[in-house]
């Protein structure tokens, strides 16, 4: 009780200090709120005339001026994406009393189709009634004149000059270039994340795929603005000040669009992909995904009919097979396997095996394509004749871990980091991968028998064409590895300053030069006396290559007879190549879906592409299928 008393006494001082602070706080609050009161008085009384002028009579509006989007050109300066100006007829719905009557009235003057009306309704539903929305795009001069004469009848309707994106070469390289389309909600979030919201005021298109998407913020430029006085109806009266926009950067590609065209034509109406890379830089020379589509269809919002055609096609033209198609590499995997064997010391080039036509693993026979076998096979012959038995044995000797380690270094099963979004990873099989991939314990275990077919590029192996091309380019470049990229440099539109992409190699693989030579020699052998010899007969340059076939469906015991199998179930044909062999300027990977054997349909495409690139030879049409039945 006493203690409590004294503590009460002690707190008397505390209490009076507290009261002092409360009074102090009260004064501070009073002062601060008075300051606010003074600010309100200043704004609402002293400056009232100024502000009410700004608000009432001449509402000042800041109008964004959308910058011109950067232009995309190929390595030779050929334009792939540009802008052109055209007149559009636009309605600001909030300034129109009767929207239906206005649209009907306009239809009598200017041809407005039902698809135009549908698109306009869609924009309206997005809640943009305060914006100026296009009802017709690309007006002719005559239509502009006709509207101008009757303009007084249509308050809230205007003709505006707008810039449109155009892809002059149409469907050529559409998977690389991509397209732009109207900004949607998800795009807005992306813009906000990059803190570009202010810069996108007034912009209504954004890159959706390809380079248009990946380099969006470089291509876009800086929005300018104009302060204009607008009357009560929202019409601009006069301009007060103007800050011009800054055009977006231009992209100059490593892509050679002429080569691209040759490659696309070579595919004809077949499905597949091709990636051609300059080995010494990693610059992509051609990136084909067949079939393609016309990006111009998307710019104004694609018509439903067009979208249905693209979307429902069984050939899936919107899929970028070069980046998102994953295929077993088949026998094109063999040169890399052989290099792995040399580098890990599991084989020397001279060591040979004797091939009876099958490989016995635990009582199970893994078949070779050639009935009766290839006889005595060393490394050179194993690549030139594509002997499976050699690689069944090799894979078993190396073990899955060593294979996965070497192939991982070569970029298999990893995104290459190409300057396009949404690249697939593929699958580099390993015990760790299986553990991640499967959930049931018995599925998670790696069985030694599964390693056998990994050696010939089958089994769980699954890679994108761009990974295969990168690995080929790396071997052609003696282990100096680059990130594949499409853009050579960006040009700042104001200063003209160029920003180069990728002068530095990604990594230098420490391979012994004689090992690389062995592999390259064997690949040259493929194109002179092996499975690629027919396609490259009389080429006029030396080249290295390797054919491959990826099984689409497994044959249980029976032999593969192409004619008896339906086209969709035919194997995928693959081919990798580099040329000229001495100093490779081009390395590529080709896949033709359901093309049968690699030598049959993929190698002739590679020949056409390399012929054009090295010799400037233009092909006559699509590559024809050679009548070759070996691989």
């Amino acid at each position, binding site marked *: 009780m006493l203690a409590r008393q004294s503590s009460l006494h002690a707190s008397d001082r505390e209490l009076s*200090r507290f009261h002092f602070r409360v009074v102090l*706080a009260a004064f501070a*609050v009073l002062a601060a*709120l008075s300051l606010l*009161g003074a600010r309100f008085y200043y704004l*609402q009384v002293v400056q009232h005339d100024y502000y009410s002028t700004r608000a009432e009579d001449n509402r000042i509006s800041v109008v964004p001026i959308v910058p011109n989007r950067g232009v995309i050109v190929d390595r030779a300066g050929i334009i792939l994406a540009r802008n052109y100006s055209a007149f559009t007829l636009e309605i600001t719905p909030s300034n129109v009393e009767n929207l239906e009557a206005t649209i009907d009235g306009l239809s009598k003057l200017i041809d407005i189709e039902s698809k135009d009306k549908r698109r306009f309704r869609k924009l309206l539903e997005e*809640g943009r009634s305060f914006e100026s929305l296009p009802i017709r795009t690309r007006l002719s001069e005559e239509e502009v004149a006709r509207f101008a004469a009757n303009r007084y009848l249509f308050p809230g309707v205007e003709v505006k000059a707008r810039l449109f994106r155009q892809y002059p070469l149409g469907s050529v390289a559409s998977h690389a270039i991509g397209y732009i389309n109207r900004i949607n909600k998800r795009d807005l*979030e992306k813009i906000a994340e990059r803190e570009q919201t202010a810069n996108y005021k007034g912009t209504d298109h954004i890159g959706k795929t390809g380079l248009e998407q990946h380099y969006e913020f470089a291509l876009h430029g800086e929005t300018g603005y104009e302060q204009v006085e607008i009357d009560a109806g929202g019409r601009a009266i006069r301009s007060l000040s103007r800050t011009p926009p800054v055009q977006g950067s231009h992209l100059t590609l490593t892509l050679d669009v002429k080569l691209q065209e040759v490659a696309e034509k070579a595919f004809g109406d077949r499905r597949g992909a091709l990636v051609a890379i300059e080995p010494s830089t990693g610059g992509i020379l051609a990136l084909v995904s067949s079939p393609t589509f016309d990006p111009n269809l998307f710019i104004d919002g694609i018509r439903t009919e067009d979208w249905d055609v693209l979307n429902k096609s069984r050939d899936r033209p919107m899929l970028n097979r070069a980046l998102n198609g994953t295929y077993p590499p088949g026998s094109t995997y063999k040169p890399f396997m052989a290099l792995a064997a040399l580098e890990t010391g599991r084989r020397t080039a001279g060591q040979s095996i004797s091939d009876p036509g099958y490989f016995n693993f635990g009582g199970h026979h893994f078949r070779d394509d050639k009935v009766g076998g290839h006889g005595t096979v060393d490394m050179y012959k194993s690549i030139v004749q594509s002997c499976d038995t050699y690689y069944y044995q090799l894979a078993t000797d190396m073990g899955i871990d060593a294979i996965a380690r070497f192939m991982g270094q070569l970029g298999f099963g990893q995104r290459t980091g190409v300057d396009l979004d949404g690249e697939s990873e593929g699958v580099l099989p390993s015990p760790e991968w299986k553990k991640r991939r499967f959930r049931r314990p018995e599925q998670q275990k790696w069985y030694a028998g599964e390693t056998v077919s990994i050696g010939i590029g089958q089994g769980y192996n699954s890679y994108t064409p761009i990974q295969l091309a990168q690995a080929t380019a790396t071997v052609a470049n003696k282990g100096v590895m680059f990130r594949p990229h499409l853009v050579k440099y960006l040009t700042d539109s104001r200063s003209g300053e160029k920003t180069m992409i990728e002068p530095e190699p990604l990594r230098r693989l420490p391979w012994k030069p004689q090992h690389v030579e062995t592999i390259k020699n064997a690949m040259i052998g493929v194109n002179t006396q092996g499975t690629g010899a027919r396609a490259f007969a009389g080429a006029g340059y030396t080249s290295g290559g390797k054919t491959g076939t990826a099984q689409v469906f497994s044959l249980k015991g029976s032999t593969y007879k192409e004619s008896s199998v339906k086209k969709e179930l035919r194997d995928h044909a693959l081919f990798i190549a580099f040329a000229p062999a001495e100093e490779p300027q081009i390395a590529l990977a080709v896949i033709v879906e359901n093309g049968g054997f690699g030598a049959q349909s993929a190698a002739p495409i590679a020949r056409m592409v390399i012929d054009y690139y090295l010799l400037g030879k233009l092909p006559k049409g699509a590559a024809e299928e050679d009548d070759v039945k070996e691989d």
Partner: protein
Amino acid sequence: MQEFLARAWRGLVAHLDTPLLLITLMLMAAGLPTVYSATYDANSHLVPQMVNMAIGLCAMWAVAQLPPQKLMRFGVPLYLVGVLLLILVFFFGIKVNGARRWLSLGFTRIQPSELLKIAVPLMLAWYFHKHEALLKFRHYVVASLLLLVPFALIAKQPDLGTAILVGAAGFYVIFFAGLSWRVIGGLLAVAGAAAPFAWTMLHDYQRKRILTLLDPTTDPLGSGYHIIQSTIAIGSGGNYGKGWLAGTQTHLEFIPERHTDFILAVFAEERGLLGNGILLLLYLLLIGRGLIIAGNASTLFGRVLAGSVTLSFFTYVFVNMGMVSGILPVVGVPLPFMSYGGTALVTLSVGIGMLMSINTHRMLVRT
């Protein structure tokens, strides 16, 4: 029967503070039509805001029923839960517009920083109360650390508005608990010296907002836009305003966030200086009443909590009105009982409820 009703009524209102209740109701009465005016063109937020207010008033009543000793017990658990949630946000929060403030519960998302506006003053008030008899310098250090942890986590999200409110609420507790003037002076000196470093720590957009404040015309499309448009709205309101639903700035959609953080611009445009004056007076009365409650409180806990809650209201009002009228940078702080938003309304109502509790349970504590 009549007697029973009378007794029930007395029980119901026993712990309500009439002046505080009246002021709150008047502020709500000013806010509701303004929310309607700000939103009726597109989709009216009137009914949801009425629901929010009803929930707020219920929360206020419920908190007022709890005696301060009970309130005190919430301090530690609320604080711990709050900080834990903030840590979860730090690691697993959802990113919206570049800021990581939200935690997903699957069916809904919560913003844990809001909880800290209540938890921090409760926790610190409890802490000082517990060590009341022998407050040493180290207690102030510990209290500062307790404040710093949630403050830093919120500032990092980044959410400068909430960080300021939480930081201020905690600081007020420490201040009213008797932090010596020498330390306060020292802190101010350190803060002054550290300002250039703090500048480098700010996010780009935060820096931009401060620069924009100095000259809004440098960024008329971005953050300067808010300030330019809201000062035009306020200034054009004049003495008596343009009248309800007649604000051109509002209805031509020149004012961004006009039903939430920038609602004052709508109110000032339509109600003029007269409306603003009344609004300022109401807030002054609210704060005055709060300070009186703090002054009369019988325990250290009650005193510092009431003081902190009251000055927090002041902080809301000053920061919000300051930014809308262009004398403070733009940060996300709502205007109490005016801005649309359920979370803020409940938090503020709980604050009022705590003031009521401290005031009406006073006598019981003494005997």
